[in-house]
C-alpha cells in the first residue's frame, strides 16, 4: 500500500537521523487521524467516547507496515502522532468554537470527564492549553513534547521515553514540572 510504504520509509529515515522526516511524516499522520476522528464522529453512538489513544492506535495500524518496522520506529511514530493528535484536537476545538458562533457544523468535542464540567468548557480549556504550550515551547521544547505524548496521545511514561529517546526518569520529572507550570499558567 502506497501510504504505508511512505510512512514506513519516513520512519526509517527518522531513525537514520534525518530529522526533516519528522515534519514530512506529520501531515501524513495528521491527515489520517483527522479522517478517523471524523469518521467516528459522524456515526458513532451517543455517549460513546474514544480515547485519543485509540485514534492514534488506529492510525498506526492504517499507516504502518507492521512487518517492516521495529519498536524504535514504532516509538518514533507515536512521537509524530502525539504532535498530530494535538493539532487534530486543537483544530477541531477551533471549529467547535466557530460553530458556536454560527460557523460551520461542529465536528469534534472533547469529552467531559466524569463528574466534570460540560464539554464546552473543555473546548475553551483545550484552546487555552494550546496557547500555554506555545509559551512553554519557548522556555523548554522538550517539556512540550512530553506533554503532547502524555496528554494528547495518552502514552505511558515508558512509551513517552521511547518515543522521545529520553529516560523514563526524565519523562517523569518533565511531566511533573510541565504539568505544574501549565496549571499555574492557566490558573487552574
Amino acid at each position, binding site marked *: 500500500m502506497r501510504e504505508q510504504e511512505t510512512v514506513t520509509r519516513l520512519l526509517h529515515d527518522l531513525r537514520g537521523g534525518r530529522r526533516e522526516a519528522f515534519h514530512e511524516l506529520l501531515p501524513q499522520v495528521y491527515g489520517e487521524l483527522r479522517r478517523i476522528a471524523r469518521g467516528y464522529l459522524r456515526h458513532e453512538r451517543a455517549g460513546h467516547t474514544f480515547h485519543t489513544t485509540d485514534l492514534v492506535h488506529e492510525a498506526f495500524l492504517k499507516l504502518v507496515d507492521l512487518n517492516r518496522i521495529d519498536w524504535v520506529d514504532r516509538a518514533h511514530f507515536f512521537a509524530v502522532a502525539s504532535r498530530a493528535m494535538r493539532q487534530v484536537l486543537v483544530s477541531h476545538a477551533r471549529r467547535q468554537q466557530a460553530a458556536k458562533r454560527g460557523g460551520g457544523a461542529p465536528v469534534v468535542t472533547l469529552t467531559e470527564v466524569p463528574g466534570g464540567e460540560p464539554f464546552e468548557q473543555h473546548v475553551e480549556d483545550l484552546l487555552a492549553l494550546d496557547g500555554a504550550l506555545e509559551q512553554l515551547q519557548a522556555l*523548554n521544547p522538550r517539556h512540550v513534547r512530553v506533554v503532547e505524548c502524555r496528554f494528547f496521545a495518552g502514552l505511558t511514561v515508558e512509551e513517552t521515553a521511547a518515543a522521545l529517546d529520553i529516560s523514563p526518569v526524565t519523562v517523569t520529572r518533565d511531566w511533573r514540572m510541565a504539568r505544574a507550570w501549565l496549571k499555574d499558567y492557566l490558573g487552574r
Partner: protein
Amino acid sequence: MDANRFDRLQALFHEALEHPPEARAAFLDAACAGDPDLRAAVERLLAADAAPDPWFDAPPDVVPDPPDGSAWVGRTVGPYRIERLLGQGGMGAVYLARREDVGLVVALKLVRGDLAAPGHRERLLRERRVLARLHHPHIARLYDAGVADDGTPYFAMEYVDGEDLTTYCDRRRLSVEERLALFEAAGRAVQHAHAHFIVHRDLKPSNILVADGPDGRPVLKLLDFGIARVLAEDEADGPAALTATGARVLTPAYAAPEQIEGAGVTAATDVYALGVVLYELLTGRRPCEVSGPARLSAVLTQPPKKPSTVVTTGTTTVPVAAARRATPERLQRRLAGDLDVICLKALAKEPERRYASAEAFVEDIRRHLAGLPVQARPDTAAYRVRKFVQRHRLGVGVTAVFLAVLTAVVTLYTLRLQAEREATAREAARSAQVTAFLIDLFREADPNQALGDTLDAYEILARGVERLRAGEMADDPATRASIEDAVSQIYLRLGRFDVAETLAEEALRTRQALYGRLHPDVAASLARLAEVRQRRAALPEADSLLREALAITEATRGKRHPDWVAYANTRGQVLREQGRYDEAEAVLREALATGLAVHGRFHEAVAFSYDELARVLKERGDYEAALSLNAEALAIVSEHFGPHDPRQAVYLDNRGSLYFNMGQDSLAEVFHRQALAAYRATLGEDHPNVAVSYTNIAAALQNQGRLEEAIELYRNALAILHKVHRGPHTTVASVLYNLGNALRAVGRTAEAEPVFREVLAIDRALLGEQHVNVGLDLHVLAGVLREQGDYAAALPVHRQALAVLEAALPAGHRQVGHARTGYGITLLLSGDAAAAERELRRGVATLEAAYEAGHWSLAEARGWLGACLTQRGALDEAEALLTTAYEHLREARGADDRYTRQVAGQLAALYEARGQARRAATYRAAAGG
C-alpha cells in the same frame, strides 16, 4: 520569563519536592533569598503540583455530537425512506427505514465515509447475492445492499428491536448458565455462516442483539454478517474464499492478533472474537485491558488472564458478580476449570491453537452445560471422574470418597504411564489400557448413554468387574491383572475389603503364573494384598506378604527404588499396628533413609516415613520426638504441595492426635480444627475426612468435659458418613463408638444402647463374628445394658464378649481382664456375689499383670472386687483393696472423678458394714451422696 529563569525555577521545584512538605519553607527561604518573585513562583508550582486535576491527568477523549440523525432522516436511499436513527456503530449509523412499495420495515445501515474504499460498489453487488442466501433464525437477514446517490454504501437488513447481548444479560441479571445458553445460540449462528464460507470479521456484543420473544424467551440475532468483508480493501477473489488480507475494518477490543497484524482472516478470527464476547459475558471485563498504543503489542503477545482470576480483583467485582446472581467468590468457583480453559482456548494467539471452528467452540459450551467433559481440556482421567461426579451430584451415594479414591488411583496409572513411556513400549501400552478401561467406565456412565443419573459409583465398579469376569481382556492376562489391581485398590480405599481382596488375589495369581516369583508386578500384587489384609486386621499375614514383596523388589529392582520405599513404609505401619514398635522403628528408619536417597526430601513417601515414625514414638510415649518428626512431615508437605493440600491435613490430624495423647486437649482441638479447615477447603463439606476431623475435635472436646458439644460433632460426622458410605463401614463404626461413649458418660445410656448395637452390627458384617473388635463391642454393649439396670440382658452379652475375646487375644490380654471384670460387676449387681467374686478375682489378676501398679483402670477393677468382698463379708481384704484403689484413683484422676467417687461410695459401704459410721459418712460425702 526566559529559558534560564525557567531552568532555575525547574531546579528549585524538583529540589523542593525532595524535601518533606514541612521543611520546604525553610529550604525556599535559603534558596530564594533576595528573590521573592522566584520564591512565589516555586510556591505556586508546588501548590499546582499538589492539587489533583482529573482533566489534566486524563488523556482527552473524543466524543461525537449528540446524534440527531437529522442529516439523513426523511431522505430516501434506494427504495427506502429513512424514518429515524436507531443507533450508531464503528462502521456507520443504522436507521429505521421503510420500503414503501412492499411495506417492509428494515434496519438501514449507512457506512462510514472513510470506510467506503474504492471499488466497493462492485464488490458490494457481488457479495450481496452471497449474503442474501444466509438463512438462519439467529442471523438478521440481509435484504438488500446498494449505494446511495452520494456514494455512501448501504445495507438493508432485518429490523431487530433488541438490546445488545451484554446489556441484555446484565439488565436481566442472567446467571452464568443463562448467559452460556444465549452465547451458544450466537455461536451456532456463526457456525452456520461459516458453513456458507462467510466470516463475520467484526463480531462484538453490539452486533448481537437480543429481544424477548413472544413466549418470553430471549430471541437472539446476529447483525452485520459479511459486511466487514464487503468493505475489505484487498478482497481475495471469489465469494467462496474464507480468507482475505488487508481488511482493516475492526474493533480494536475484539480484533484477533492476526487482524492486527494484517494477516489472513479466517473462521478462527470469528472464534477469537466470540472468545472475547464470552469472556466479557462471564467476567464483565475484556481479556486485554491494556489501552492505548500498548494494546497493540498486548493483544499480540500478552496471554489473557483466566476468567476466574479477574472476577475477584478490581473495584467492580461485587456489581459484576451481582449481575450474574452470584458473589465474586461463587462466580470465581463457577468459572474456574472448564470455562477458564474454554475461553483461553478460543483466545489463543495462534489461530491454529484455537477451536478449529465455531462448531467445536459451541460444542464445548454445550458439553459444559450438560456436565460432560469438554474437548478443550486434556482428557485426564481425574478430570473425567470429576465431571462424572459433578453430573451425578445428587445421584451418587459415595461421591466424595469415590472422587478422591478414583482420582488418586487413575492419576497413579497416568503417572506410571508417563514413566513407562521411557521403559518399554509394551509396558506403556499396558498402563494406557488400564487407564483407558477405568476412564471407559465413566464414559459409559454418561447420562447421554442411557444409564441415567441413578447409576452410582459402586455399580460402575461392579460393572467393570463383571466385564472382566465375562472375559474381557481374557487374551491379555497381563493387562487384565493390572486392571484387577487398579480396581482392587479402588475398592480398598472405599472400604470394601472383600471385593478388594478377591481382585488382589486374582491379580496375584495371574501374575505369578505369567512371571514366576521374581517380578516387580508380583511384588506389587503382594503389597496390594498385604494392604487389604492390613485393613482387615490380618496383620501377621500382611507382614509376611510385605516381607516377600520387599525381597522380590530387592532382587529385581534393588533396594534403592521407589517401590521398595513404599512397601517398607507400609510394613513399618503394619508392624506398628501389631505393637512391634522396635521393628517398626527400624524398618521405618531404613525406609526414610532410602526414601531420602531415592526421592530427596520433598516427597510424599518421605513425609509418610517421618509421620509414621512419629506415630511409633507416640506409642512409646516419646511425645517430644514424635512432635518434631511430625513437624518434619508437615513441613515437607506444605512446602511441596502448598498450604492447603489435603495431605497436610492428614499430618495436622496426626499432630492433633499427638497432643490428644499428651493430654493437651485444647492444643489437640486446635490442630484438629486446622485439619478440618484444610479438608473442607480442598475436599468440600461431604468428605469422609471432614467427618474424621469432626470426630477428632469431638474427642478432644470430650476430654475437656465438653460432652454435649462433642455429641453434636459426632452427629455431624455421622451425617456426612451416612451420605458418603452405604452399608457397613469401619469409620462409621468408630465414630458411633465414640458417640456411644460420650452419651454413656453423660448418663444417656438409653440413647447409647442403639448406637453400640449399630457398631456391633457393622463390625460383625465387616470383620466377622470372631473379630476382637466384635468382642470389645459386646463388652461395651453389656456395660450399657448393665447401666440401664437390665442385668438379665447384659449377662449373656458379657459371656459372648468373653468368648470372642479369649479366642481372639492371647491369654492374659488386658481386654480379657476388662471383659471378665465387667462380667463380674454385672453378676455382683444382679445379686450373684459368689459368681461375681470368682470372675472379679480372675479379672483383677489379669489386669494386675497387664497394668502398672498405680493405673486407674486397675484401681477401678480392684474397687469392684473390694465391693464384692464387702458383700461376701471379707471385710479386711476389701478394706485393703478399696483404700489403695481410692488413693490411686484420687492421684490419677482427682477426687471429683466419677470413678474416684465410685470407689469412695464403695468404701462408705464397707465402713457401714463395719459399723464405722463416721468414716462411712466421710466417704459418703466424698462420693457425693
